[in-house]
């Protein structure tokens, strides 16, 4: 018998409640003191097709899903057909007895068919066939001999709030009936069990977008404007839901161009502002990004990637937009690019993005992707230190127009918005005070902010230098977040960025447990960086293999371009599915052969 280490997968058509059932189950398991990692896979449609949700359970923090499934909950026949091969020998397939599934074909490959009268229980006990999902999750709990009270608690939380306790209680009765029946029939046959950890701390179950939302709130972001686009929409929705409580202005704009421009306007007035989008929407923002660079306006853009080109694979994942984000926009202007890799990093670096944007008065792009945005993980509550993030709010050279005394002191010798300074950072006084009346322009401008009608070479050189030198200051003072994981003297270093963190970290554990010496080098900070320092870090590595969810190993190219060091091999994945530890382990073998 294996306790508290297994993967449960739910599959069915869009509209059958695969995701909500999976997340409910995951939350119940987490409340029992276990660690979970939940990943979803869905199609760009509201009904039909095939969606699945996978919950991995463990007794230590999990950073990724893995590929071996122990229990499959099939809401339709296709799920059995598509996923039976992922099951371990002795794994179970739970399905409604009304589905056309051939139990013998499952037994023939050492799987346990587990037909159950799920629909019947839902109908007869609950009086509603829609409660079949509840029956399925409860049956799974019965098979794993997992304490049903955790499932009941989640049911009461979910239904009690929205639809009243009567519906909740009917669902609980369905759960009890399905649980008992499944336990009686199949628990003795099934090897994997879930057992609550007594006294475990209460942990959060949270995904990347939610973590970003918390980070933005903690950073004092007050203006959010954007246009819905998968996988960024749930971040926009999260912040819209918090608007009243936290005094935010959240605007759904007519397009992404307007989304970033609203941010530029609000930031120009002295408010922390952000937009969120995916590649297509970011493409539309590009001209405005250049305006933010020229006018030195601090805006924060969350770029939640999905595979392109064009509409690409709208509900899937990839890291294809790195070089685009680094170079997006006409002309040369300063920007920062950050790519957190875990929900904890999402929280902290979202907040940090606002500090960098305001300190250097430039746009900051924070990159995630569908995998990071939507995958849920258990984390300790303390892992999100709200108070420290709030304390670290740093607004840079900013004086607000209602801060009368500060404005007077700052403008004694007059005020020039784009005053030349050694750091390139000029005092920012948003419009509104009589001592700081000025224009700004996307056109090349004078230190006063007027369009430079003479277009003199001298002014142009001064303004370009002023703006661009902020990058080297930023690289020195505020950038350089990277992490090694694994043995210091590793023979092979897996180089990665952003959301690859989890799968690569888990792959390092797998590979080292099989006698290899592998570590991970993960970058959150992509640009600007002190490249001499990065070069020294790379020199500490022996064989470097880049691991990325794109075709051309874009981060590896960025590194080569700036340090001259070429990674020795690469592992890329661009099928729209997230990287996973097993894939990386298998591909590493192939990559090393080629080195």
């Amino acid at each position, binding site marked *: 018998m294996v306790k508290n280490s297994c993967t449960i997968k739910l599959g069915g058509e869009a509209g059958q409640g695969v995701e909500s059932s999976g997340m409910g189950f995951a939350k119940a398991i987490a409340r029992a003191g276990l660690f979970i990692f939940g990943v979803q896979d869905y199609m760009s449609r509201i009904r039909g097709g095939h969606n699945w949700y996978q919950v991995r359970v463990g007794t230590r923090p999990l950073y990724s899903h893995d590929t071996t499934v122990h229990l499959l909950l099939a809401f339709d026949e296709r799920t059995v057909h598509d996923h039976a091969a992922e099951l371990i020998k002795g794994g179970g397939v739970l399905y409604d007895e009304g589905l056309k599934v051939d139990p013998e074909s499952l037994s023939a490959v050492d799987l346990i068919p587990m037909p159950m009268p799920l629909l019947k229980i839902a109908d007869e006990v609950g009086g509603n066939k829609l409660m079949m999902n509840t029956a399925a999750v409860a049956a799974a709990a019965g098979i794993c001999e997992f304490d049903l009270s955790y499932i009941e608690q989640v049911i009461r939380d979910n239904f009690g709030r929205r639809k009243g306790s009567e519906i909740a209680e009917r669902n609980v009765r369905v759960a009890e009936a399905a649980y008992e029946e499944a336990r009686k029939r199949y628990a003795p046959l099934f090897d994997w069990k879930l057992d609550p950890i007594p006294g475990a701390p209460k942990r959060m179950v949270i995904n990347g977008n939610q973590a970003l939302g918390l980070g933005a709130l903690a950073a*004092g972001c007050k203006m959010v404007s954007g246009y819905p686009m998968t996988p960024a929409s749930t971040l926009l929705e999260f912040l819209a839901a918090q608007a009243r409580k936290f005094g935010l202005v959240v605007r759904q704009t007519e397009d992404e161009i307007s989304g970033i421009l609203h941010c530029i306007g609000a930031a120009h007035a002295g408010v922390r502002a952000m937009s969120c989008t995916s590649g297509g929407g970011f493409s539309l923002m590009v001209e405005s990004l250049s305006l933010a660079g020229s006018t030195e306006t601090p805006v924060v853009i969350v770029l939640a990637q999905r595979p392109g080109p064009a509409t690409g694979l709208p509900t899937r994942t990839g890291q294809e937009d790195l070089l685009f984000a680094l170079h997006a926009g006409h002309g040369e202007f300063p920007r920062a690019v950050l790519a957190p890799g875990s929900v904890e990093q999402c929280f902290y670096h979202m907040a940090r993005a606002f500090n960098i944007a305001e300190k250097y008065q430039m746009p900051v792009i924070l990159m995630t992707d569908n995998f990071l945005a939507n995958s849920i993980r258990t984390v300790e509550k303390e892992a999100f230190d709200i108070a420290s993030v709030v304390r670290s709010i740093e607004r840079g050279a900013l004086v607000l127009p209602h801060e009368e005394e500060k404005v007077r002191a700052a403008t004694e010798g007059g005020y020039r918005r784009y005053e030349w300074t050694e750091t390139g950072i000029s005092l920012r006084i948003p419009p509104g005070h009589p001592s700081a009346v000025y224009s700004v*322009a996307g056109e090349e401008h004078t230190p006063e902010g007027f369009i430079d009608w003479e277009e003199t070479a001298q002014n142009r050189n001064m303004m370009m230098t002023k703006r661009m030198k902020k990058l080297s200051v930023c690289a020195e003072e505020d950038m350089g977040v990277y992490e090694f994981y694994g043995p210091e003297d590793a023979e092979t270093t897996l180089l990665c960025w952003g959301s690859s963190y989890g799968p690569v970290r888990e792959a390092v554990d797998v590979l080292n447990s099989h006698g290899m010496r592998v570590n991970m080098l993960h970058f959150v900070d992509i640009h600007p960086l002190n490249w001499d320092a990065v070069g020294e870090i790379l020199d500490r590595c022996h064989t470097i293999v880049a691991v990325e969810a794109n075709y051309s190993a874009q981060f590896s190219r960025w590194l080569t371009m700036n340090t001259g060091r070429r990674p020795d091999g690469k592992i890329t994945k661009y099928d729209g599915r997230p990287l996973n530890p097993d894939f990386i382990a298998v591909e590493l073998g192939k990559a090393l052969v080629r080195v």
Partner: protein
Amino acid sequence: MSAPATLTMRDLQSPVEPTWCPGCGDYGILNAVKRAMIQLKLPPHRVIYFSGIGCGSKLPDYVRANGFNSLHGRPVPIAQGFLLAHHDMKVVVVDGDGDSYGIGGNHWLHIMRRNPHITHIVQDNMVYGLTKGQYAPTSMKGYVSTTSPEGTVEYPVNPIAIALAAGATFVARGFSGDPKHLADLIAKGLEHKGYALIDVFQPCVIFNRVNTYDWFRERVYKLEEEPGYDPHDLNKAWEKAHEWGERIPIGLFYVDDETPTLEEQIPALAHKPLYQQEIAPSVEQLEALKEAFV
């Protein structure tokens, strides 16, 4: 930060000299904008002009006030973002027909149904001046230009009709050849609680040889002087919006003082402007929000 007792043209004098051609219709608009500020005693620090790209969009540099010269077609969303962050400022958009009726048309359509307190002056010269004479969205059908050598085959945008259909709560048209009348319209627009469109006939003396000062002078008449015209009557306004030919109406077509502004409907803005609000959120509230994930 109190307003000066009096405000004169001198107070609004910018150190920057206009680069416009002699006789350009934009001078009349600049003059009218300053007159309106004086009429309303609006000191420079209380006003911000957002402009697009084009000859007329250079205007913010030529009047002493706050300004933001942005991108072609994009001042409207920037102005909205600014207003939501600082809603006790007078926010004005000054752009051209190519900006808001062309490349930024989508933004224009949507600001009108939101009704933010923004005054939108569109310099409508019916030609692309700064790029040297291509046809504009408002060029009349058949207009011959460098990009329509055989005459345009498109019908022109009718800004007044579109604004009425889109829900604009203040719809007016002025003529830069009559800065006094235009100043009055702009002042009314600035006072209007909501979105105010002021489309301005602005002759381009270099590139538009059809719609000249004389061409307009022969045709325009003021709705204010039209017996019995009531700008609260949407149907009448709709009718006047389509009058084009021997007689072309200018003045206030339509006004609706009932519709609430965008910013009035946003809870976060109920007490003070966003930029003045404490940036640090409540740690307790955020800790409580974390519990929702447990």
